[in-house]
């Protein structure tokens, strides 16, 4: 194992070095970094040119200048890490640090959501193979896959953001829209749940009616202007979550697991007011983290206390429920700050942002800042999500179908296991193996930044930095040091995540051994 890893690592490092040399030399020869100064009319033109030549070592030919850059990299070992300066004379390391943070924020959210939604949709389509639901999802995923992301992004800006902001001025939903949305919801649920005609009709009726009532309630109470859940809704949703999670994770027949998750929900509801009181004090991310750890420990203890045939099943179920329950309470708390946020001077009642990663000069509590990130993340995340969703959906579907045809699934059915146990315990887990590797590789690729998305939404991340160095927007080019900085991050991410994918694969699939 160690030999395999070290061999892979050495090969990857050589690949990275060769590629970095190619990138450096190519970039340098692609243009003249003094272009803007040569044509300038400044009095001190000559001094400026000399300063830049001195700062960027332009007197050394590129194929040797690479080694100056590389020595800066090597000096990282003695604590003087240096990636050079950009044309404006700013250190690349500091620029890169900020850009990486904002890109990671964007990419992580979008990838996580895409994985969760994609896997769920993929499973449902695989279980309903060759139904009209399957066909529609297939069509939609091909459609999203064929959309240029910048086109999608501009559409989202225009139709989602601006129209939603207009809608928020007077949040009353028109009856026609309620009708259409309810019908769509009904048809979607009917497709997902399937069954005979009778069952389908009932599903359709319940789903459409529920959606209509909820929307009508939102409309009548102008909920979108003053969103909030309140203790009752948190409790009811919590009970729903408890049943759903228990069904999927342990099966409702496992009473102890059900009791543990219900106890977690009751405890969470009981703590609703005390927590809200606690949140009146200045809150930070650390507070939330500590609370989350405490909640997980308590939930684990509850599961352990209830026990059951297999204690760990109860512990696991309770832990999943407590995470979702905590999320509900947090969402509720965020919603309470919505009014303060949306009506603040900087926002002026149009909260969904189309540009940038935060509102400049916005001062507010932890909750208001959180809402600000949320409204800024919403559109770019949606664009990235739609674009990458298709891949995960198709992949999960194919992978699960492959597994469902295996002999051990037939055996599991023949043993008389419930369909839930067959799908969740035998099929789904095995189908996840190839998906994890795809996820690891994808994540590595995405860290480079979604160049186009960042450009459309004015997100100042690594993609933006890269583009600027390439001369977008009239800046002098080629600015080789920022390009190398971004390249280094993406290259290392690709190598690390490739290795990670191999490791995950070997640890999950016992048939594969590396040598």
């Amino acid at each position, binding site marked *: 194992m160690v030999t395999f890893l070290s061999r892979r690592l050495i*090969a*990857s490092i*050589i*690949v*990275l070095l*060769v*590629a970095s040399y*190619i*990138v450096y030399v*190519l*970039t340098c*020869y*692609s*243009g003249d970094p003094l272009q803007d100064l040569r044509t300038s009319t400044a009095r001190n033109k000559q001094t400026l040119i000399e300063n830049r030549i001195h700062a960027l070592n332009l007197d050394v030919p590129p194929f040797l200048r690479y080694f100056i850059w590389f020595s800066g990299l090597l000096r990282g070992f003695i604590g003087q890490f240096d990636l050079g300066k950009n044309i404006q004379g700013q250190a690349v390391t500091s620029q890169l640090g900020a850009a990486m943070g904002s890109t990671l924020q964007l990419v992580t959210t979008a990838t996580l959501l895409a994985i969760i939604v994609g896997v769920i949709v993929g499973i449902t389509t695989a279980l309903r193979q*060759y139904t009209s639901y399957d066909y529609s999802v297939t069509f939609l995923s*091909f*459609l999203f*896959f*064929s*959309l*240029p*992301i*910048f*086109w999608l992004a*501009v559409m989202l800006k*225009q139709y989602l953001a601006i129209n939603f902001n207009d809608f928020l001025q007077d949040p009353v939903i028109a009856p026609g829209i309620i009708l259409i949305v309810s019908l769509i919801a009904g048809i979607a649920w009917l497709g997902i749940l399937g069954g005979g005609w009778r069952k389908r009709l009932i599903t359709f009726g319940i789903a459409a009616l529920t959606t209509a009532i909820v929307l009508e309630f939102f409309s009548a109470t102008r909920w979108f202007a003053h969103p909030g859940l309140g203790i009752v809704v948190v409790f009811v949703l919590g009970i729903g979550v408890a049943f759903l999670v228990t069904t999927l994770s342990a099966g409702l027949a496992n009473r102890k697991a059900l009791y543990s998750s219900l106890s977690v929900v009751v405890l969470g509801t009981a703590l609703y007011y005390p927590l809200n009181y606690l949140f009146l004090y200045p809150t930070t991310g650390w507070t939330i983290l500590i609370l989350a750890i405490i909640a997980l420990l308590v939930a684990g203890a509850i599961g352990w206390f209830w026990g059951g045939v297999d204690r760990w099943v109860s512990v696991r179920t309770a832990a999943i429920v407590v995470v979702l329950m905590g999320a509900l309470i947090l969402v509720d708390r965020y919603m309470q700050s919505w009014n303060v946020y949306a009506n603040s001077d900087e926002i002026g009642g149009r909260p969904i942002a189309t540009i940038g990663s935060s509102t400049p000069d916005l001062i507010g509590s932890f909750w208001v800042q959180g809402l600000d990130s949320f409204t800024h993340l919403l559109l770019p995340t949606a664009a*990235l999500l739609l*674009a*990458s969703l*298709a*891949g995960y959906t*198709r*992949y999960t579907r*194919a*992978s699960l179908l*492959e597994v469902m045809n295996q002999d051990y699934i037939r055996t599991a059915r023949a043993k008389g296991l419930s369909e839930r146990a067959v799908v969740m315990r035998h099929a789904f887990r095995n189908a996840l193996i*190839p998906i994890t590797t*795809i996820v690891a*590789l*994808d994540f590595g*690729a*995405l860290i*480079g*930044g*979604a*160049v*186009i*998305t960042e*450009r459309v939404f004015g997100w100042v991340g690594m993609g933006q930095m*890269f*583009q600027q160095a*390439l*001369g*977008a927007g009239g800046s002098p080019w080629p600015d080789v040091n920022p*390009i190398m900085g*971004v*390249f280094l991050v*993406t*290259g290392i991410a*690709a190598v690390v995540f490739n290795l990670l994918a191999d490791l995950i694969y070997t640890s999950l699939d016992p048939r594969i051994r590396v040598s």
Partner: protein
Amino acid sequence: MSNFYGVGVPPEDPEKRDKEDSIKREELATEVSEHAPSDQLEERVENAIELKEIEGLSQGRIVFRRFVRHTGAMISLTVLFLVVVLAFSSIGIDALGLHLRGWWKWEYTLPHNIVNGAHPTLSLIPQWLGGSGISLGDHPFGQDEVGHDTFAQVMRGMQQSLMILFVVGLVSTAVGTIIGAVAGYFRGRLDQLLMRLTDVVIIVPLILLAAVIGRTFQNSGSFLLAVVLGLLIWTSLARLVRGEVLTLREREFVDAAKVAGASSWRIMFRHILPNAIGVIIVSATLTMSAAILLETGLSFLGFGVQFPDVSLGKLISDYSASFNTRPWLFWWPGSFIVIIALSINFIGDGLRDAFDPRQKRLLNRSARAAKSAAREKAANAGA
């Protein structure tokens, strides 16, 4: 998998084509056993029907038949054909020294008098429905603020985008196939070297190379851009072909060819690659659909097709600021990108299904009826 640019090739099904599996099943189906349990019996009857359907047909014929039955792929093929005809016949061809005039009256390069406030004059609602009748008008897709005819521009952009995706598909398939086949067939040092080369190409940011090429050869047009893109996105195909060749080279027919004294190149190109054609074709189609998105993305960022010429991505990029005032400048090129990419994706899906030996879905109607009858019969026999 998406890559650095947010565009990529849809993932292959994780399953490896397992031809032996289907061969085994066919053998099983031909042998007759009287004491078989009903489930097995049922499966055999079904397989017999499937076998009958493909009796006496060559592999190519079977694949073709399956492909023709894939409705989505056939519709997409028709749409793509119509789009290509529209793009090349409307404003004519002006390339490779050829100057053919098309049937469309406006040039894409010249501004014209603004008609109807630059709004699209296309009307599709017939008069009896209260519309203004079905007519094209002077500028069916509208005009920009200077008066360029959007229809002519979109057609020109489409020609460029189609040319680029075709060239990219051709170049990347050729390079990927050769590198993958050589690496898989010769193995050893050469394989290691080629695969590391593939890693280098994967890791170098495409957008950077496109920008560099664009700058260096400013005026040599989009053909060169297409060739360069093709020289860069062969990597996934090379890996797939290598994997396929690695398994195929252990088969008996390769040994037979070797014993008969065939040279390595002959074995590779005459014996192994024709057997890997499924993987190659499917991957080539998907590369093409990725290529059109890549080209539009690069043009959007300003690193693709350069000024006097237009492409669909460049049109969107140029006009994205005027979305509020002239949305049609944005709608038309975008819709054509989606139409082209979508139809290519569906064709790729149809090809993948057609080449899959385990494909059982696309039986024709009479065979499906026979199958369900057989199942009932088997169920009755079992009960």
